[in-house]
């Protein structure tokens, strides 16, 4: 079989950005509701996508629904533009929608992400789409969906606070390092998707529109620009982000989220930025200065 022909508008035989217009409208309606009620999980009719659950089917459907012909798309996975997931999703939209893609955070109008928020500050007009595996922050505390919905409806979030209490009892501090629960607009408890808690402060009053899609669980939610997002904590055990003794070995950054990499069999460790675009840009600036 011949590969489908790629035209300027995308893949021949497919609608723009893969999904049919009816489905996109359905997703956009759900997104409007999600934006209107920040942090509230809106059910939607998630479709089968040409990639497995857990690879970003929720995020990819949201991206397809909001993508326009003039958008510039960036896709990251754990902060990197060059990992399998990021590359294949970026190529998917380049082929099915024919949109321009980039790795430059500042240039992108639409960014789909898994597990990170870019280090470069986002600006008004940008859209950040998160891939979410488990949208329900109360799921590990209460297995019944009927009950978690009631807990949201009546703002009964004592159980989540109890979980943080238990972590202090056992470890002397709040032990949660990723998917750290947040309260959105002082109303809904929300899972920020498995981003490190380092990124939680970036959710607060972010000028960009933040959209979350969970394909398997069929839920969408959103944080509109400049919304209050507070990480849960205690007065005497306030929320804190991670700190490293090391700086990035490649660009020397001390203000970014660092990955620890073991580089040989003797266990030599290297810390490097998880955001490849941010790191590369800093290295380029440093090279120019030395030249």
């Amino acid at each position, binding site marked *: 079989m011949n590969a489908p022909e790629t035209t300027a508008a995308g893949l021949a035989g497919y609608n723009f950005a893969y999904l049919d217009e009816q489905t996109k409208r359905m997703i956009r309606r759900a997104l409007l509701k999600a934006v209107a009620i920040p942090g509230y999980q809106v059910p939607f009719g998630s479709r089968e996508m040409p990639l497995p659950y857990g690879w970003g089917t929720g995020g990819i459907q949201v991206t397809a629904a909001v993508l326009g012909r003039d958008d510039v798309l960036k896709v990251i996975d754990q902060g990197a533009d060059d990992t399998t997931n990021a590359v294949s999703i970026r190529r998917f939209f380049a082929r099915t929608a024919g949109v321009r893609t980039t790795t430059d955070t500042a240039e992108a109008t639409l960014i789909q992400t898994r597990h990170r928020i870019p280090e470069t500050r986002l600006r008004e007009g940008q859209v950040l789409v998160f891939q979410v595996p488990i949208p329900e922050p109360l799921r590990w505390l209460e297995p019944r969906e009927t009950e978690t919905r009631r807990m949201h*409806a009546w703002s009964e*979030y*004592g159980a989540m*606070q*109890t979980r943080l209490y*238990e972590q202090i*009892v056992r470890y002397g501090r709040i032990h949660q390092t990723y998917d750290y629960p947040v309260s959105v607009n002082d109303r809904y408890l929300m899972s920020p998707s498995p981003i490190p808690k380092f990124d939680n402060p970036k959710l607060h009053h972010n000028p960009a529109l933040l959209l979350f899609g969970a394909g398997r669980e069929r839920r969408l939610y959103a944080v509109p620009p400049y919304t209050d997002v507070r990480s849960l*904590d205690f*007065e*005497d055990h306030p929320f804190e982000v991670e700190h490293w003794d090391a700086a990035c070995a490649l660009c020397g950054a001390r203000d970014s989220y660092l990955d620890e990499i073991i580089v040989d069999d003797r266990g030599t460790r290297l810390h490097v930025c998880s955001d490849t675009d941010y790191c590369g840009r800093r290295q380029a600036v440093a090279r120019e200065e030395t030249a």
Partner: protein
Amino acid sequence: MSAAPLLQVDRLGYRYGGGAGCREVSFDLHPGEVLGIAGESGAGKTTLLRLLAGDLAPGAGNVRYATRGDGIVDLHALGEAARRRLLRTDIGIVRQNPRDGLRMDVSAGGNIAERLMQTGTRHYGRLRETAGDWLEAVEIPRARMDDPPREFSGGMQQRVQLARNLVTQPRLLLMDEPTGGLDVSVQARLLDILRRLVHELGLAVVIVTHDLAVIRLLAHRLMIMQNGRVVEEGLTDQVLDDPQHAYTQLLVSSILKG
């Protein structure tokens, strides 16, 4: 005892499919008063308690509760949000099985502090202080605070459940067979604590049990139920020592042997 009743139950009824869960039950409960409800299994005791707790919506009649701030409200006409708020601050429920009333994997301290966190306390140190105080009030050493209830004995679990309910200082406590499945000496200790706390805190209590010895120790007043109806009610000693209704006579003679 103040004049205004805390709880007014008026001709309450509930039907399960064919049979009646309870019929035409009416009573008043004043602050500081302990009401016992006795009867054999299937008499409608637990149904009545579930109606009082808002778990079930009544088929007939109503339950009126005198709140702290908002005057007298019909418990079932109240929105679910307001009812749940009332239930987690002003009304405590002690379940027969501690598994239904406790989080078995969360430490005893966490179990007790949960209701405070629910109502907005965000200071870890103070939460622990309060939880520890309540553990001691139910005679569990403060040192056991960080152990989960699944490592506790049945009697201790029931006492943790009691502390978890009392921490928000409710005015009404609903108890369903709180001594069920406990041996006699453990029962005695739980009853001792209950009696002391009820007295100290001026709690109003509705206690459902088939154990007339528990009723005799705790309850001021007693209602005997049979087939969903109240067949006899009065002061505890009066009902137990001089039962008038045939069913009460049977119940008293079959339990208080020797």
